[in-house]
């Protein structure tokens, strides 16, 4: 298939393209083109004196900012329905990553290229990239030991359902105990929790 170099000025985004990319992802796409160049040709069709982009609408958005004035394109002659069908096929036929293999690949990349650079061109956030790359590397025993430890130190939640009048009474009682809670430090860092505890302790003590 022949590749034709077309001036950026005569390329138009397909207004019917449903595929959207947010600002963050567009920035990553821009960084990727900056780093590697426009390695994939756009697919276009001629329409009303300009060329409508069937594949590469997101790339088109960032080319101007990158000062790329000549764009390699594959030019097709297609009617509206065929153009839309091809665009959908190009956008939606792709495989599914095996996350274990992807993790291995990411580890290989990260061993050679700095994480900051990798994050410039991949869609993941820093945390996601780290946790993805860790698949298969962490020990089950370590995870469970950490979980067990966090369980022991975790504060527990108690839920009650109250009418608004009942809630007012409970709130008032807890509020009255807050000064005692302030002066009565414990390993519970929440003041209201500590106040509720002291309130209950005081009630039980009176029995």
């Amino acid at each position, binding site marked *: 298939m022949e590749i034709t170099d077309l001036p950026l000025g005569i390329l138009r985004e397909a207004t019917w393209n449903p595929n959207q990319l947010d600002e963050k992802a567009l920035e990553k796409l821009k960084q990727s083109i900056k780093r590697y160049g426009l390695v994939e040709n756009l697919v276009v069709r001629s329409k009303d004196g300009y060329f409508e982009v069937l594949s590469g609408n997101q790339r088109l958005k960032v080319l101007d900012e990158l000062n790329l004035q000549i764009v390699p394109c594959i030019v097709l002659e297609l009617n509206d329905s065929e153009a839309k069908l091809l665009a959908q096929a190009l956008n939606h036929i792709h495989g599914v990553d095996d996350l274990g293999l992807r993790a291995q690949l990411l580890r290989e990349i990260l061993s050679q290229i700095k994480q900051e650079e990798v994050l410039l061109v991949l869609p993941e956030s820093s945390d996601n990239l780290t946790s993805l790359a860790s698949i298969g590397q962490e020990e089950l025993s370590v995870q469970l030991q950490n979980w*067990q430890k966090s369980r022991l130190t975790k504060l527990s939640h108690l839920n009650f359902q109250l009418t608004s009048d009942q809630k007012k009474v409970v709130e008032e009682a807890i509020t009255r105990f807050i000064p005692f809670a302030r002066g009565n430090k414990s390993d519970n860092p929440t003041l209201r929790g500590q106040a509720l505890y002291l309130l209950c302790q005081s009630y039980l003590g009176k029995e």
Partner: protein
Amino acid sequence: MDVNCAAGVMSSMVSCRDTGAGLNPSAALHNLLVCPIPRKSAARILEREHYLHSFPAGTVLCFGVMLDNRLTGAITLGAGPALAYRLVDGAEPQDCLTLTRFWLSDDLPKNAESRVLGVIFRYLKRHTDLKFLISYSDPSAGHLGIIYQATGWLYTGLSSAMPLYDLGDGRLRHGRSLNNFLGSRDQGYLKKQGIKINAIKQSAKHRYLYFLDPKWRGYLKSAVLPYPIKEGNNGNN
């Protein structure tokens, strides 16, 4: 793997794995690695592969099953039904977890499910103070809980299924969602507040328990029943 769709274990179509020609299945079993995986990764794989296509709320532990660097399974343990711990006398909510999702690729060797559960049991016993696990299998999806039977769980019969609730918009909500959304799931109370609510009955599920700490086995309040079998099956399940 054309498994009999045991509780939460879904037969699935996954592209053929390259495990090497003539690989000894028992050797492959020993190469299975059970490891922690991030929640997002567990959610991604379960939403795609598990028959419920959802990631359970209240998940606390996510495990992956790796073979030859491929992620070939995902398991989640979570809070499960709020009062399930009461099945065991003296138990507290933190004493148990529910096995909420268990999916392994069909390409894994025979007995992979038992092997994976065995590893999980061993590590939970060694590194946590959990006393028992609970799991459910849905007969309305054709599941009997074969994997639980094969790994020695105790069968306690069909659980009384919690209804789902419709507020008139056709969307079915869990009781916990109602608590969050309306402050209560009590139908009488909600009716008094002028809120129309329909409880939609759900089918009961087979309930299994596995004691990580055998000392607690004696405190099980529910009777242990014979394992359910497929209708028309004379016990060769």
